């Protein structure tokens, strides 16, 4: 795409915005996945150490998919929205699992 015409500033901003969404947003999403799955997999009867290992190993795939999705989706706004909403959902699930565990104990 590098023609002689300079790239418009708005384009550069969109790229920067998506990069932030992919790198940091994707990491936040993966972290929320690792945390929530570490708790929820225990509900399926998996031991604590295995739940954490499984959740953590798979979180890298989550980060990857998030980064790919951020750059594949049509609009920057939708990219951000998707990352923020799914991170929030997983964070809520984490909170829920903790609250449940706390209530039971």
């Amino acid at each position: 795409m590098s023609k002689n015409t300079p790239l418009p500033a708005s384009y550069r901003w969109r790229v920067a915005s998506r990069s932030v969404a992919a790198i940091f947003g994707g990491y936040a999403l993966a972290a929320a996945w690792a945390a929530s799955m570490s708790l929820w997999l225990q509900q399926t009867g998996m031991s604590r150490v295995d739940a954490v290992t499984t959740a953590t190993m798979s979180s890298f795939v989550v980060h990857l998919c998030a980064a790919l999705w951020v750059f594949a989706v049509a609009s920057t706004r939708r990219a951000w929205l998707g990352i923020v909403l799914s991170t929030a959902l997983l964070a809520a699930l984490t909170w829920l699992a903790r609250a449940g565990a706390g209530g039971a104990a």
Partner: protein
Amino acid sequence: MRPDGKPEGIRQSMSWLHTWTGIVLGWLLYAVFFTGTLSYFLDEVNLWMKPELHASVPGADAAQTAAVALAGMQKLAPAANTWTLEMPNERQTTVSASWRDRNAAAGRAGTKRAELDAATGEKIEARETRGGNFLYRFHFELHAMDRATGRWIVGIATMFMFVAIISGVITHKKIFTDFFTFRPKKGQRSWLDAHNATAVLALPFHIMITFSGLLLLMAMLMPWGAEIAYDGDRQAYNMERRGMVAGAQQQREGEGKEGREGRGGRSRGGAADAAPVDLAAAIGPMMAQARNAWPEHAVGRITVNRPNKPGATVELRAHGSDSLTTRGASERLVFDAATGKIKERPPLPTPSAASAVGNVFASAHMGRFAGPAVRWLLFLSGVVGTAMVATGLVLWVVKRAPERRKLGRTPFGHRVVEVTNIGVITGLALATGAYFWLNRLLPVEMAERAAWEINGFFLAWLAALVHAALRPARSAWKEQCIAIVVLFVLLPIVNPVTGGHGLFTSIPLGQAGIVGFDFAMLAIAALFGWIARHLVRKDRPVAQVVPAPLKEVTP
């Protein structure tokens, strides 16, 4: 991502992502791939860089070697609490001994080490060098910064690499036809073909090595699961995880094993009578029992707990493991030293599904399980991976050649990428060659010797970068390639001249480790020689041979 905001397909957006994740961290990834690939020969590099160890040639009888080594330990460290002997094997000529004194500091700090001649049991004084461990460490924690920082930088680069690989796969709809397509001498087209071919050829390796690299660093990169499930006690998680693979991962770590085995010896061994045992005499029958217990495996390690004290035990551990899921755990026999009877036959650990998966990735990444054939396959896959990163970096420059011609000048950014490409791709190989040469040329008694080998590595690297900046790109490539060939092709000759065992000695003696290093050096020389020959023959600017416009690669 298109500047004009027009809609685009998934492949175009992935192509964009692939180019930019690639160039941002490509140089770092090249260095990681290059030094990591050499680390498949870590033991061989360590052995080569201590030529004093080459003269140690074990006899055919392993029991005899064990007896001699134990007699050596009796002279060297009679009062120690534990002795650990790594027996010679196809990658190691000596007996690697380590021991811990009674009030030794915990972990590595309290462990003393020596190399024993496998035939005589005498201690060998080897030159001071970091050896292959420097290259191995560099590949995941860099240098001249604290370990955590280096690991973070490499970890982040690995995450980018993962994105670059998968987006690269999505970019290629014709991924398998591309693999069989090579259009040589067509400038950009050829570079793209080369990049595709190297990427597709070893794709399973690339995905495995990148993902497993992330898993090896995962406790640092992604601690949040452990953090929340263990209420912030990450240590507890790590302990539980390691507990599942009891006995594994000790080969190089040296931590933990003394504690565990030492405890076993103390708690169970109190009843035996007080007369010290002549271990050198007692080891023969034990070795014979081990040979019966595991006929396929040699004895890899001998651990003596409480030598010369009541209740001494001798543990024999099999060399090599049949299983990837246990991360190298192998069978063990524990003998009562006084009676020579088997006291314990600890079962192999059976990991859970989750840790088995993790262990398979870790084993595959490090290749510690691998015999010579698999090790060479991993090494060649690493070479292909290194070439993939390199061709990708070069492609970035070549692709912009038409733009340069149209402008009639070289934009500063393009020149920076071009110079850095040379300084990193051939520069790192030059630095590594210089490192091996310095290992043999610096005086053995020099102060700070090991540090100067490493300083020499970085000085040579810097010189390559400066050279790349001062010369026209094409000449710089050519000259550095030729220099690499000269450095590496001479190493098998430098080796015997400076005290090591050259190929004429090492091949008849069957010293596979030394032979392997020399052949790996010749392989590297051949690879760069092939590139140099190509550059010399077709000595005209790449820009002139760029063919007709390309349709498939417009991002």
